[in-house]
């Protein structure tokens, strides 16, 4: 209870020093402060404190400093945020990039159809097939091929 009253009086002292109490309230405060001699002593001492405004009067910033700040602020206003940058550069660069990627993919499709259509043989595969067909027409190749097969898989072993 006494702690609460003490805290209340501290607040009242602050308000009194800041001129926020009426004459009656100040009188009541002084009466109440007699219960707390230390607070009363502090209250009286604080009333005679020199004003701080006087101690720090005459402080003025340099005129050039204010001008420098305004220059910095003018420049600052021209700095766009990430959102602005994204909006500005999206159309220009991202769309160009998408177009280029699409162009590259299309050109690849015409060059290598098998990359996109697995059912369709690649030009290389077709060429190999043609070459094999042509080799089968050469009698020497057929003979050598048959002999090789015979050596690897003789008829008596295979049962044929």
């Amino acid at each position, binding site marked *: 209870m006494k702690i609460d009253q003490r805290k209340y009086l501290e607040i009242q002292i602050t308000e009194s020093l800041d001129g926020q109490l009426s004459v009656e309230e100040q009188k009541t405060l002084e009466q109440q402060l007699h219960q707390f001699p230390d607070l009363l002593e502090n209250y009286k001492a604080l009333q005679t404190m020199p004003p701080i405004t006087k101690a*720090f009067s005459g402080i*003025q910033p340099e005129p050039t400093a204010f001008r420098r700040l305004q220059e910095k602020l003018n420049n600052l206003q021209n700095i766009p945020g990430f959102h602005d940058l994204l909006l500005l550069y999206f159309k220009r660069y991202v769309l160009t990039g998408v177009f280029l990627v699409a162009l590259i993919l299309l050109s690849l499709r015409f060059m290598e159809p098998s990359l996109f259509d697995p059912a369709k043989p690649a030009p290389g595969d077709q060429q190999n097939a043609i070459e094999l067909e042509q080799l089968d027409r050469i009698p020497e190749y057929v003979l050598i091929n048959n002999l090789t097969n015979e050596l690897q898989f003789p008829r008596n072993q295979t049962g044929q």
Partner: protein
Amino acid sequence: MMVSVATITVPAYPKRLQMLFAEKNKAVVQEGITSNPMEELKRQLPEFYPRIYRAISAITYGSGLSAEDLTQDTFLRAFNNISDFNSHSSIYTWLHRIARNITLDAMRRLKIRRRIGLAYPTADSMDQMTDDTFPASDDDQEANLLLRRAISRLPNDKKVLIIFKDLQELTYAEIGEILDIPEGTVKSRLFKARIMLKDELMQSGYEHEN
């Protein structure tokens, strides 16, 4: 010894980007319910700048930090983060919050640098240097010097409270908003800070009238 805090270099951007950014700002003005905080801040800049500079000068007094640099950082951060500004509070209060954060961060960094030997404070030269920025406007030069030095010796949280209330004349509610504490706590802490300041003044040989 003055310590430069930050140097910001701003690159040049193409005209198209500048136009885009201008259009974006214009859109914000049209969407704004009452007014655009950016425009509001720009409009009140000449009024706010000396006040914020004064607060930062008082907080950093005797530390060796450049109040000018910190003030510029405060406004640059405010303009950079204007989208974070909550329209329920005032720009002036919001600027004080930024100034406080920037200044206390700089002081913390400086303290660490001094601890590890990267910065060397010289108390006498610092006092002379910072006192030059406070012209002797009255006969109480000695008393004012003692008061400034007493404030500089206070812990940062108490220093900020006293400066915001007694120098910047912010309300309890505004200080509470800046520090994220209730009004009652502001008053209670302010009382303790003032007591501490009084004790510091007494220790430094200041004698009040009574």
